[in-house]
């Protein structure tokens, strides 16, 4: 028999003996990890600057999407107006995203929770410093709420969703 096909390569040899069950196995091996990787979950702890909350992650990766918790300005004592707190929050978020190898340009959705109506203008001014001059505009909702951290001096809180490009 080997005299008939002396040039049989290992792959041809395998295919020569392959049965439908093998083909199915190959398909499962290739497609299986695909579904698993779409669900990959990773918790990123809350940085110390955001305070100690043992039951909350700073953010959670679900596949290529990062869901980030509500964020405060780490320096509420010094930053006593909305604009400087907005800059403080986005600076800290930028640092956090960089630790996950992301930039503010990877942000796709933002919720801004602001403590008072008077704060909108300051928020817009602070926000523009980070998103005004870059092309990647996120989807965005601005709300006025009662902030849980208001008694510590918080004037706004921000949560967001970012995506690995």
């Amino acid at each position, binding site marked *: 028999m080997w005299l008939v096909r002396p040039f049989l390569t290992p792959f*041809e040899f395998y*295919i*020569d003996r*392959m049965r439908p069950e093998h*083909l199915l196995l*190959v*398909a499962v091996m*290739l*497609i299986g*990890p*695909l579904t698993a*990787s*779409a669900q990959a979950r990773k918790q990123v702890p809350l940085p110390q600057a955001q305070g100690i909350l043992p039951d909350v992650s700073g953010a959670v990766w679900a*596949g*290529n*999407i990062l869901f980030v918790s509500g964020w405060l300005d780490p320096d509420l004592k010094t930053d006593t107006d909305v604009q400087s707190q907005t800059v403080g929050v986005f600076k800290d978020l930028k640092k956090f995203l960089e630790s996950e190898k992301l930039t503010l340009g990877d942000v*796709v*959705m*933002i*919720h801004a929770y*602001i403590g008072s*109506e008077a704060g*909108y203008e300051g928020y817009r001014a602070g*926000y*523009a410093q980070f*998103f*005004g001059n870059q092309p*990647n*505009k*996120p*989807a*965005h*909702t*601005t*709300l*006025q*709420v009662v902030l849980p951290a208001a008694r510590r001096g918080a004037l706004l809180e921000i949560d967001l*969703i970012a*995506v*690995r*490009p």
Partner: protein
Amino acid sequence: MRRNGRGAMATIAMMVLVSASLVSRTASAQHIKRIPLPPSQNPTNADLPIAAAVWVGNTLYVSGWLDPDMKADSDTKSQTAGILKDIQKLLESQKLTMGDVVNMHVYLGTNPATDGKPDFSGMMAGYTQFFGTKDQPNKPSRTTLQVVLPAAARGALVEIDLVAARP
């Protein structure tokens, strides 16, 4: 004859290998596309640093939405319907329907007509025209909150943002 069968088997095996590797490549790279605000949500055509919505793979994140005609729609029911009608237009432009909405946040503002108490049943009356109907039975997960709306000064009683997914 048998050898032909094996040849076909080898071809099928190669096709499975190639297509599986192609599929995994497209799935791992998240395609991102940013949709600009339509005139209905930005009537003055200002250079606003936000998008109407952002595609991430097969998921569409939609910004907070207002009724384009808040002057005519002076109650929560008609504003809710006005918002959802306008969002429906956005979704259709992205080849989606209201049945593709998976998650929704409804923000109710203070309602001057009822001493500030938000009009939850008015919101529901607008909402149920679009979700859980005979023609559109799909219902999203939903959170309803009472907030102070930034657009309240312009007459807004309700604002909605949502997430939709391509089927």
